[in-house]
């Protein structure tokens, strides 16, 4: 269907949830109350590594209002360990404590205040063990093993090929090589090498993790702030040895996610406590506890690139090390993807990639918007600028020369490039005024990046029900975390069915009601769930037309639906009339089913990339040379969305992503002192604030309807985070001549670099 003929898709219709959200009527897990609800609080380890000697819980158990005090051994579970990649994480620390902040004892009481008060009475005796609180320490020859043995979880097909390195703390090792490296290095006119560092981050979605769990005759029901209701159901079924059907995971609106709510977190604990006290239990974490639950990987990248004098890339070597903390969570996949994506969106004949996911005694690291791309892009794109500088080339020209073209393969066997990367980068450069003269003390920089979008080997199923009154229910398991997926799915349904947008309702994910969905992550929902919903809507449409045909004395093929009216020449019936006409009563319905089944691939990911999510960014900055403060004056972000289902929400996703990227670029980082998180809360951990909004923040949407999704759509939402740091870093270099290799580019780091430069020492990357 050509874009100009679209009536609902491609329009900036208001969000379905907008009204509830501005009136305070929107309900989140943290707003849920149940009769007899009990409240849980968690005692967390103050030390990063220790052997538990004993947990003394009697005094806490005797405190007012306390219903139960549980250590690992007291949990009524069949299986204590969980995790999406490895079953390496205990619901409560068992025998060994592996990070500071790890839950060791849980208290359940009639009120949160009573639970909190009783926590102070918990006493845990332990013997400290030497801790490895950085990847370097954990990789050292003498480092002790944080997990002597690990068991594969077997939840996800693409994780069946995990390759830990036995006898080390490496829980996943991704290696890829092509071409003749030795030759490439010989042939090169220039070889540059650098080490780049990206800090661990806290997601700080504004709604902290919250779970309400209830156990009754029908089994287990869990209301959770999760992006992955179905994988969570699977883990809970394993933990309690229940059939999937006996576990119900419900996800109302959630207050932000950004990857921090991927996979299973506190759901098993809340469920186990509910089973223990035989009352519904609420476990609401504080923001500081969130920061001790999941983080973004701190990553170091050693990257080396060989080029010819004219800027043709010959070879790239990347050694990527990710600190995944005490439990793997989804770290192994993040490492694989970081490795897969490390070379960048360029034509590079020769590659050697090595990515290691390393256990440490830090807070577990998992998914975070961009999934490894922002970290490797900081390295790769910063190095592209070093190359341009050394060869005296325009950074834009250097990139355009090497960017992959539509139809080219990134990796042999994987889906060819489905977009026009050069167009995006050129539009970005134009928008920032790349060739315009610069005021003194200012600089400009740009960057581009790409990730395999949609998740590897993921699937979705959807049901579209047309009710007897013509209204439509969409049953889809995609989680509304703010990205506007419900609105997008409603638009796709209305467009496909030919019914008014206002007549479509999208249900909240409920594993007992909505069909299977792999999860809301990897920018996949609009494309993959979108395709499932579109297919379900087509199915329903065909069924309703088949019902209408006899009523309108016609072949189904002669009929059209628009605005809920089915027309044959001059005769018209509403969808409602057709359905009630068919069933002979004011009732009945037509239900369509659709699903997306992933394709195969011989590529190194072990699954076909659904679409390529590309992002470009350009920054203009002014630098205060005395304080080192970087002022971001202008930021342009471009996203290839194929076809925007809702242009306003697409742009909003990209703006939000770019703004989030400003954090780690300029000031955001977790401070870890020997395993102790020094800035768990928002007083000492700075996230972007209103005052950080640059005078100009623009998003360019590239729309060539060339995506595999409905109406040519591609996923969006992560790409805006990719390029912010390298674009600002390169702008800093143009403004001052100094180049930083470690994020964030805090005023002090910039000031030190400027001072070192004045003292004549070279910036690190050029040493």
């Amino acid at each position, binding site marked *: 269907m050509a874009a100009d003929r679209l009536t609902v898709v491609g329009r900036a219709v208001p969000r379905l949830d907008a009204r509830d959200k501005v009136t305070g009527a929107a309900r989140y897990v943290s707003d849920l109350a149940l009769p007899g609800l009990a409240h849980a609080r968690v005692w967390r380890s103050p030390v990063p590594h220790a052997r538990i000697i004993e947990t003394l819980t009697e005094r806490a158990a005797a405190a007012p209002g306390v219903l139960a005090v549980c250590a690992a051994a007291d949990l009524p579970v069949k299986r204590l360990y969980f995790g999406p990649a490895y079953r390496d994480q205990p619901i409560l620390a068992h025998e060994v404590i592996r990070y500071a902040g790890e839950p060791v004892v849980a208290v359940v009481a009639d009120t949160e205040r009573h639970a909190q*008060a009783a926590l102070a009475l918990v006493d845990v005796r332990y013997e400290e063990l030497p801790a490895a609180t950085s990847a370097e320490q954990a990789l050292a020859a003498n480092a002790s093993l944080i997990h002597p043995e690990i068991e594969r979880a077997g939840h996800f097909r693409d994780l069946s090929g995990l390759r830990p390195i036995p006898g080390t703390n490496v829980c996943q090792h991704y290696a890829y090589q092509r071409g003749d490296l030795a030759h490439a290095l010989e042939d090169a006119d220039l070889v540059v090498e650098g080490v780049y560092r990206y800090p661990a981050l806290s997601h700080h979605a504004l709604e902290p993790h919250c779970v309400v769990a209830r156990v009754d005759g029908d089994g287990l029901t869990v209301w959770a702030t999760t992006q992955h209701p179905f994988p969570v159901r699977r883990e809970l079924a394993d933990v309690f040895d229940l059939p999937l059907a006996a576990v119900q995971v419900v996800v109302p609106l959630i207050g932000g996610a950004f990857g921090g709510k991927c996979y299973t977190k506190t759901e098993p604990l809340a469920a186990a406590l509910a089973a223990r006290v035989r009352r519904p239990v609420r476990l609401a974490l504080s923001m500081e506890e969130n920061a001790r639950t999941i983080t973004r990987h701190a990553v170091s990248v050693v990257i080396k690139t060989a080029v010819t004098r004219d800027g043709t890339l010959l070879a790239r070597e990347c050694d990527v090390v990710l600190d995944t903390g005490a439990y793997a969570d989804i770290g192994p996949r993040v490492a694989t993807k970081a490795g897969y994506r490390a070379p960048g969106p360029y034509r590079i004949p020769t590659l050697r990639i090595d990515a290691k996911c390393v256990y440490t005694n830090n807070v577990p690291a998992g998914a975070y918007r961009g999934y490894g791309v922002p970290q490797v892009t900081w390295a790769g794109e910063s190095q592209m600028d070093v190359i341009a500088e050394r060869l005296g080339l325009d950074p834009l020209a250097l990139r355009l020369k090497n960017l992959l073209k539509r139809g080219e393969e990134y990796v042999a066997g994987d889906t060819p490039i489905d977009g026009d990367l050069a167009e995006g980068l050129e539009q970005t450069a134009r928008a920032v005024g790349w060739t315009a003269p610069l005021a003194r003390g200012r600089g400009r920089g740009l960057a581009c990046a790409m990730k395999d979008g949609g998740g590897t080997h993921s699937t979705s199923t959807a049901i579209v029900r047309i009710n007897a009154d013509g209204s439509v229910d969409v049953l889809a398991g995609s989680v509304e975390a703010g990205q506007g997926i419900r609105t997008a799915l409603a638009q796709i349904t209305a467009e496909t069915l030919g019914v008014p947008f206002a007549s479509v309702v999208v249900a909240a994910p409920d594993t007992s009601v909505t069909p299977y969905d792999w999860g809301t992550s990897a920018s996949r929902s609009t494309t993959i769930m979108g395709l499932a919903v579109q297919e379900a809507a087509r199915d329903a449409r065909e069924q309703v037309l088949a019902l209408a045909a006899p009523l309108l004395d016609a072949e189904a093929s002669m009929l059209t639906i628009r605005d809920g009216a089915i027309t044959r020449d001059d005769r018209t019936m509403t969808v409602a009339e057709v359905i009630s006409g068919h069933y002979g009563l004011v009732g009945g319905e037509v239900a369509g089913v659709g699903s997306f089944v992933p394709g195969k691939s011989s590529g190194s990911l072990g699954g076909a990339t659904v679409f390529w999510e590309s992002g470009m960014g350009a920054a203009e900055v002014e630098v205060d040379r005395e304080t080192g403060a970087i002022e971001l004056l202008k930021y342009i972000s471009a996203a290839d969305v194929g076809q925007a289902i809702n242009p306003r929400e697409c742009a909003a996703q990209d703006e939000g992503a770019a703004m989030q990227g400003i954090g780690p670029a*300029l000031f955001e980082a977790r401070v870890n002192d020997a395993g102790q998180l020094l800035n768990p809360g928002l007083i000492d951990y700075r996230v972007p604030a209103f005052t950080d909004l640059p005078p100009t923040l623009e998003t360019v949407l590239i729309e060539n309807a060339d995506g595999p999704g409905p109406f040519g759509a591609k996923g969006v939402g992560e790409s805006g985070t990719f390029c912010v740091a390298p674009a600002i870093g390169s702008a800093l270099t143009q403004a001052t001549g100094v180049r930083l290799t470690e994020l964030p580019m805090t005023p002090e780091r910039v*000031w030190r670099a400027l001072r070192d430069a004045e003292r004549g020492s070279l910036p690190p990357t050029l040493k």
Partner: protein
Amino acid sequence: MLRPFELSEPTSVAEASELLARHGDAARIYAGGTELILAMKEGLVHYEHLVNVKTIPGLAGVRLDAGTLRLGAATSHRALERDPLVRQHFPAVARMEADVANVRVREVGTLGGNLCFAEPHADPGTLLQVFDATARIEKKGSARTIPLEGLFVGPFETCLEGDELLTEIVVPPLPSRSAAAYLKFGFLERPSVGVAVAVTLDDGHVADARIAVGCVGPVPRRMREAEAELRGKPRTETGAALATAGRIAGRAADAITDLHGSAEYKEHLVGVLLRRAWDQALAAIDGSPRR
């Protein structure tokens, strides 16, 4: 989550002082709670009794008598930020107050509470010192007035006796041909470095210079050695003196390396902010009508 406590609401300073005396360490003055309640929620400190001094008549409010600004200890930051008298006669104070924390904290937090909680990363205690402000401290049956800088003993620590209350901050006007300025720098929620200056000119010379540095050290301090560098200098030839004064003040600030940055960097920033604040003050003098 707060543990239970008793609340007393005295209607006079004497009554408040008595309550404090009676309950000793178990009691604390509650004058806004923006810092205190956070610490209590976190469980870092607990008091059986909070004494709400905001109910004491006359403890909040702004008065100007004979050019001297009298600030009730229970006056909120917002009230100071928006007060016409403060804005007209002490614009630097109004500007500083308008930039304390965020608007919600300023609505509830009071000047006295801010000074007495003595969180080192704060603004008012630094700027007010360059006005030679004094603090009026009362208890049942007696009162004393001390220079504001004497109030601060250490981080979170003042010179107040257990039964004493800070009731008023008295801010004398600067001489004619004077102006003050306060600049702060930082990228976390709380400021990392704060520098205040007050400059008085006398036919092209620096008749008086007052400098205070906050956030960097355990308490906000006047930097008299640095001030001496500038006094008497022709206004057009202060460049070198400012640099020296900046170095002296930086060293004297007693910086430490922490989440806000290295000691070395903070010392450097003191110098940078000092010069910028100085220029701002001079610009303010030139911009204001001669009195």
